[in-house]
Each structure stands twice: as C-alpha cells, then as structure tokens.
C-alpha cells in the first residue's frame, strides 16, 4: 500500500495539468466560436505557411 503515497500525488498532479490547460484555453478565448473553429480546420488557406 506504500505505492499509494506516490500514486495519489501523481494522479492529482496529472489532473491538475489538465485543469491548468483548461484554464489556459478558457483565457485564450478558445470557446468563443466553437462552430467557426470546427469549420476553419477544413480551410487550406494557411497550409503552406503560418498566418502572418
């Protein structure tokens, strides 16, 4: 059962990374236009070089 001493912090840490990523995406306004983002992936405008 000693392994719990590692596993629980590790699982909480990994979950915490997920939560931090969610906050980051929320702050980056990634949920403002879900429909547009779903369509934008189909456009090939910036396939060759990144948008300036």
């Amino acid at each position, binding site marked *: 059962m000693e392994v*719990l001493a590692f596993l629980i912090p590790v699982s*909480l840490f990994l979950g915490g990374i997920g939560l931090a990523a969610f906050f980051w995406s*929320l702050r980056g306004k990634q949920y403002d236009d*879900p429909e*547009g983002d779903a*369509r934008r992936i189909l456009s090939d*405008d910036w396939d060759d070089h990144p948008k300036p």
Partner: protein
Amino acid sequence: MDGTVTPSVSACPACAVAPAAADVAAAARADDSAPVLLSVPGAHCALCISTLEKGLEKLPQVRSARVNLTLKRISVEAAPGVTAADLIPEVARLGYTAHELDSGMLRASGTDTTGRDLMMRMGVAGFAMMNVMLLSIAVWSGAQDATRDLFHWISAAIALPTIAFAAQPFFRSALAGFRAGQLNMDAPISLAILLAAGTSLYETWNSGEHAYFDAAVALTFFLLIGRFLDHRTRAVARSAAQELAALEVPRALRLTGAGEAVVPVAELAVGDLVRVLPGARVPADGVVEDGTSEIDRGLLTGESLPAFAGPGTALAAGEMNLTGPLVLRVTAAGRDSSLHRMADLVAVAEAGRGRYTSIADRIVKYYAPGVHILAGLSWAGWMLYAGDMRQATNIAAAVLIITCPCALGLAVPAVMTAASGRLFRRGVLIKDGTALERLAEVDTVVFDKTGTLTEGRPEPTNLGEHPRETVAVALALAAGSSHPLARALAEAATSMGIGPAAVTGLREVPGYGVEGRCGERSVRFGRAAWVGAEAGADTAAWLRIGQEPPREFTFADRLRDGAAETVQALVARGLRVELLSGDAEAPVAALAQRLGIEHWRAGVLPAEKADRVARLTAEGRKVLMVGDGLNDTAALAGAHVSISPATALDAARTASDIVLMGGTLTPVAETVETSRRAIRRIRENIGISNVYNLIAVPLAVVGLCTPLIAALAMSSSSITVTLNALRLRR
C-alpha cells in the same frame, strides 16, 4: 451580465430605442479605434469564412478581419475613421448581406464574462468530481480502516475548496431568495451540498463508513452544466436581440441655416425642419412644408394603398416616403409623438397580460418545501426511533442529496437549449425564456395582413387583359420611377418578355405619376385623378395614351413566402386562425378567401386589435399574435405569445417574444410544433427523474442508501434526461 441594455419586454418598447440611440451617438464619438462589427446572417461554412476574411483583408484600409461563425458576425480592425457603412458594400461585393452592428451596444456581450466564469467553475467542479470519484471507487470496492480514512481525507481536501469556489452561484442565488422571503430552487440545492459536505467531514473525523463528498461535488458539477446551458441560451438570444435593436439606428436629416446635418432622432425638437428622402421613414410627427410625394402608411395602419402627401399633409413617425423628397416641419417629437402614444397603448396591453410562471417555477413552489419537509421528517423519525443524532443527520443528508432537483436544474435548460438551437438554425430567434412554454399552449393564431401574411409589395393582377403595345408604353413610363407600383409593373412586364416602347421626355411628378411623349401623343401613368379617371376599389395605377380612355392596371399585395402553407398547417393542427387588418375590406376579404381563413376583420384600429386579443384571452383562449406593424404592437404585447418577422418595425420586434430572421413564414408552424415537443420532453424528463427518486428516496429514508447508490441514481438520472433532451435536436 451587468451593464448591458436589457431588451426585455419593457413596458414601452419605443422608449427603449431613444436612449439607446443616444448611447450609440456617445459611443461613436468616444472611441474610433474599436473594431467595426458587422452582422452577416448568410455566413454558414468554411468557404464563407475564408472568402469574407480574405476579401476584406485585401482592402488597404482593413488591418484584419475575423469571422465568428457561432454568432454570425465579422469583427474588422480597420484604419481610424472607417465605418460600417464603408464596409457593407465591400461585403456585398463578396456576395453576403451585412448589417451594421453597434460595437458600443454590443461590447458587453462580446466578452461574455458571466459565461466564462460559469465555465471555469464547471471545469473546477468536473476536475474535482473525477478525482473524488476515483478515490470513492476504492472505498466502494472495500477499502478499510486507515486506507478508507486516508481516502476520505484526500477527498475532503479536494471537495471542500471546490464546493467553496464552484457552488458559489447557488449559494448566492439561495441567499438572495431568502432575503426576498422566497424559497427558490437553489435553496434545496445549497442545503443538500452544504449538508452533504458537513456530515461527510464529521463522519471522516470520526472514521465513519460513509462520506458523500463525491455526491456533493457531482451535484455541483451537474447543476453547473444546467446553469451554463441556461445562461448560454439566454445570452445568444439576448445578443441577437441587441443586434436587432442596433440594426436600425434612428437618424434624421435636419435642415439648418448652414445646410443639412444627420442627427439622432432623439435630438429633434418641435419646429425643426427635416428632409425626408424617398425610401426613408418619417422620423417624427410633422406637417409637410414643401414637396409632393406618396407615402406608405402600411406599417402604421395596415393600409396597402399609398396615400398622397403635399404641403399641409400631416405625417406620423414611422410612415415611409415613396417618390419625392419632402421637407417636414416637426410638430411633435420624443414623448409627444404618435410613436409614444402607441407605446402607452402597449404598456396598457402588457399590464393585462400578467406574469407567466414557467413550469420549473410552478414545480419548485411545491418541490422546495416538500423536499425540506421530507428530509426533516426522516431526521425526526430516526431521532425518535434510534435516538442517534449522527445517524439521523446522515440519513437526512442522504434524502436531500437524492431528491436534489437535478431534473429541474439540468433537464429544463437542456431541453430549452436543444429546442432554441434547433430553431435558431432555421432562422427563428427566441427572445424570451418562457416563450416556448407559452407557445406550446397556444390554441388561437391571429395574423396581421400587410407585411406579415403579405410582403407589403404589390403584384400586377391584370397585365394579361391589356394589349402588348399598351403594356410596353406603361413599362417605359414605369421604368423611370421608384414607386412600388411602378417597380412591380416593370418587373412583371419585363419577365413577360415585353420591351419598353419609345417614350421621350420622361418626367416624374412626385405624388402623381410619370408623364412623357410617345410619338405624337402625350402619355401619363399614375393616380386615377391625375389621368382623368374614376378611382375604383382596388389598388391600381392608370395609364392614358393621348385621348384614349384611361386603362386600369390593378395590383394585389404579394403573398409572403410560405403564408399559405403556414395557415394550412396551423389549421390542420386544430388551431383557430384569425386575420385582423387595418386595410380596406376588399383586399382583406380576397386574401382571407385565398388563404382559407374563415374569421377575418378589415379596417381594424390599433386599439381594436389589442381589444380583440384581450377578448379572446378573456374567453380563455391562448393567443399567438403574428404581426409586424406599429399598429400591431399593442396586440403583440397583449397576446399570450407573439411572433414578428425581421422586417417589422423595431417597436414591434421589441414587443414580440420570437423573431423570424428569414423572409418566409414557414417556420411559424414548425416553431409551434417544436415548442410542443419541447414541453413534452420537459414533462418526460421530470417524470424520468421522479422514477429515480421513487426508487432511491424510500431507500434513503429507511437508511439503506449508501454513497454508491446516491452516485448511481444521480449520475444516471442526469445522463438520461440530457440524452432525452438532445433527441430534440434532430
């Protein structure tokens, strides 16, 4: 959202417009660097995005353009001084219709802080729920003694801060309810969450067997989802309603000694001179000083026949000037104008409507006290039976957790989101939260004629009775005019393959007609009296060639797309359909016959429309009013629920609960159908969650409910009701 303009069903829709216009003017002065916002209702695919963005970014004055497809808007960063009016033609060149949106009015809804806040709480609660559930599974599968205590303590360490942060919206709302002396839905929610966390902490402290941390966090998470969906539906409706308000920024051309100046309508004063261009709305009540023209009173009175206007004619705000420019001396502005008298009528009609209590509110009224009484009784019962305070409190907490109104908190918003999302895609905008519920109860539909069942655009009816050469002369004369009858004739004749005759010296006499010379003979096309004919009952224009007797070209209003099918569909569903119009008897009777409407009335005044709706309501009928004009506004506000097309005057749109964005009436029948299905789903959902309660509550009361059973009952009922709600999307 704080600081937004509330486009709700205010007592006086028109009053809301004037201060908004003042805000708009102030915002425009304050901020030049804000992005220009345009509404593009036609954008719908990946290609639209890249066409619009690339097309706009090619322009030298545009720095960047970004399409938001969810809200169907473009935000353009442009050089200072570039306005929406400069960009609309460019968007039109790319093949899309664009409307101006005022960034000042929309800024608050652009960054949706409340929505983001709710989403953040949801994320935290979701994260905590996953972790606590993992730990709980270990306990459920048989962790003992020190291990179980350790897991409970870790759960507590995750759950307590989460509840303190994520459940704040419920606590705040419950507290606000208490202050107002009401027991709202958030009271049992808050109590269940707090009691579950509290007893679990106590149990953990005493190395107890059962802790409900997972239930407390899961409850918070599921209810936050419901709260978020509810907020999102409202926010989309509200921002779209604001777009509508921003569509028509009322302005007027004021004549001063120095020339003309564009001013907001709110700044007009009695005695000002205003120029009204052909095709523009009359901005304020006044008397014509100079110029002759014809005016369309359709939106105010429902008359389809344009009336003559010359010096001395009194005009009312909202009428449309058709042919010639007019100079108007303002006799009443702001509060005294006829627009505001109409608003008073609306206020009276709204007072008669009364407040509608939604299904959820009605149930909560019995539910919230019932749940508390049940929990209290089980606590008292166990105290009497076993005398163990700790056990009794545990059982009371379990009862509260099981009965927590997940179905109301999640199922109703989920159904409403699915239904309004489905309708939004079909161009129906639900402005009011309870509109769908009210629509489902409707048994009578009252239609307005001009502008609602008809497009308010005439169509020639007897072109075939005239010789081709005559039509060719009429076409040559009509082609030079912007009068709606002339345009309709020109369009119809051209589509019949008739070319214009050679007519020279064309001259339009505003308010009368067009004249010219065809070879040796003088020709005139216009009002009956001007060409020397007797006016008949129909809407008509007359043509005289030389000394021949005048010929009559009759017109009928063109049916709105989908009008016939809509009326048929509504009648087929067993609804009583009525037609109330301010127009003359002959055209109304013809239209009623054409559409198969049995009950109709012509020449109805605005107050009589509202009266008729009130009388139907008094007979116990639930009335759906569909109308677009200022004369319908009071009836729209007084009806149980109301729909107006996007072409309606803004006052009418503000007064109605639902707006049709497209040009067709077809969605009306579908909206009624969808609303009925939505209400059926809500009932089903409440039934489903009651079934779960029926199974789990007795277990909880007799003390057999373990945290595992609570978690199972709660999660499965939440998932079932959500899936059931999603069936509406198809």
